[in-house]
């Protein structure tokens, strides 16, 4: 059994959203939660971020959709999902009973899509927050622009803000020149928090056939390979905005999560690690407690943003 540290306070607040600990599972890596029910004590998690949901079901991209790379993987799933109605009718039944916070990741092709999704999900029992996906690199339509053009990101955030009173997290793309600007505009537009980073756009080629390894040619890189990039961006954004930052990118063990917290993240999301180690998020929670005990800290919030820089 996993050791419990009842005297260590792991609670954090993401704006109005209260979490029992700062460890969430990242969208697209944890299905709709139920897929992991046999293997993970869901009630121990800070929360689950669902697979991205759209207004209508999406079939996703043709195969092959994934390829392993050095210390990481590329994916071009193409936002396959059951659609919001099926999500509410079927997937929420399990999630509601899972004993953890439920954050629904939403995606659309237009500002109106996002606003309608937010309105539809508001008031549904068991949904604790929304995460706006403006940063998926795998759709050819206008979706990418929402994550790369500041005015578009602000428009989506503002429209969703007007449509819901749920806590609102905006997930940022790293595929921009200045991620701090994106963070600042979505804060201004009403986001309660930002989460970063989504995947870095990459590709891989089979030299024998000279064909791309993904049918979509390009895809999103995730896994331990991207952690230093993610950590740098989280540090920069946390210094820029005053809303909470959720760190994502290659987090696979407690030390990784702690680095993000020290850099200024209030919470973290575990992504690709769920795929190869379903127990990763739980192990990270235990590891954070052990670290805090060793460091003589009583609460995880006391280490957030405590990066020590030369000359103070």
């Amino acid at each position, binding site marked *: 059994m996993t050791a419990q540290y009842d005297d260590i306070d792991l609670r954090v607040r993401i704006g109005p959203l209260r979490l029992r600990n700062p460890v969430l599972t990242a969208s*697209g*890596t*944890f*299905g709709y939660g139920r*897929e*992991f029910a*046999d*293997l993970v004590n869901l009630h121990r998690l800070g929360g689950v971020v669902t*697979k991205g949901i759209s207004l209508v079901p999406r*079939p*996703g991209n*043709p*195969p*092959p*959709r*994934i*390829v*392993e790379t*050095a*210390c*990481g*993987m590329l*994916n071009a*799933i193409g936002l*396959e999902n059951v659609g919001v109605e099926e999500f509410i009718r079927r997937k929420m039944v399990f999630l509601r009973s899972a004993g953890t916070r439920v954050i629904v990741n939403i995606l659309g092709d237009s500002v109106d899509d996002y606003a309608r999704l937010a309105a539809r999900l508001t008031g549904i029992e068991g949904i604790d927050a929304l995460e706006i996906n403006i940063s998926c690199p795998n759709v050819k339509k206008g979706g990418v622009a929402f994550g790369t053009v500041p005015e578009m990101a602000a428009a989506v955030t503002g429209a969703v803000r007007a449509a819901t009173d749920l806590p609102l997290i905006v997930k940022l793309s790293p595929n921009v020149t200045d991620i701090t600007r994106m963070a600042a505009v979505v804060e201004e537009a009403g986001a309660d928090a930002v989460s970063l980073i989504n995947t870095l756009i990459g590709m891989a080629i089979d030299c024998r056939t000279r064909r791309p390894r993904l049918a979509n040619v390009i895809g999103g890189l995730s*896994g*331990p*390979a991207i952690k230093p990039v993610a950590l740098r961006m989280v540090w920069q954004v946390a210094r820029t905005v005053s809303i909470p930052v959720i760190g994502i990118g290659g987090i*696979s063990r407690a030390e990784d999560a702690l680095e993000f917290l020290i850099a200024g993240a209030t919470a973290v999301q575990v992504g*690709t690690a*769920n*795929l*190869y*180690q*379903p*127990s990763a998020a739980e192990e990270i929670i235990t590891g954070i407690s052990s670290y805090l005990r060793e460091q003589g800290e009583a609460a995880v919030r006391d280490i957030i943003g405590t990066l020590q820089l030369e000359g103070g």
Partner: protein
Amino acid sequence: MTKFQEKAQILDRQELAAGVFRLTLHAPLIAGSAHPGQFVMVRVGELFDPLLRRPFSIHQVAAGGDLQLLFKVVGRGTGCLARMEPGREVDLLGPLGRGFRLQREDPVCLVGGGMGIAPLYFLGKRLLQHARLPEFDPVLLGAVSQQELALLADDFFGLGYDVRTATDDGSLGHHGFVTDLLDAVLPRVSKVYVCGPYPMMRIAAAKCLAAGVACEVSLETHMACGLGACLGCTVQAQEGYAHVCIQGPVFEATEVAWQ
């Protein structure tokens, strides 16, 4: 069906032919609940490269909670696994996926090509639990050469099946494709179970369809999670995309949109 994450000790490692390995692992939770055609996801190391688990169909389970995997070294994941000495532990997730539907009475035919033979042995053993006469069940096995096939064929002979072989180089049995052997047996079987390279399964599926014989195939794809979460292991099915890890790996041949 419940899935388990289990640390399994490697009890034995046999190299059946150059680069072909059979590992025996002690994994009582998974072995105790596995069904033929299901698979396990194996973490081949503790480090990040290779990062993802590798899927392997279950070759057989034995009383006492042992489980066998049969594989050929084709890349880094299988290379790592092949180098693991008995005594080491590997982390398994399983049993995963939808396996074969067991035909209890009428004669059936098993068709295996290369490492696709792996799950058929588990199937062949489990079919025998239902009183049947294996000498009326043809088992058609194909491989590159006699060296790769002989020991595996012996296992099915040992179970009493009507074993017929084919090799690419003619060193054992029919010189040619294993599917060449299917025509002669189709008229007297009610179902065909196939696992092997994609082109072989496509041919077998077409022959079964033409003969009006039910056919199940076990598909293989790249996979990340094995749990239905990442949606990476997609194949083209008759009705849109299907995911091999949860809707398969075993499909009715007619469900697949053969390319």
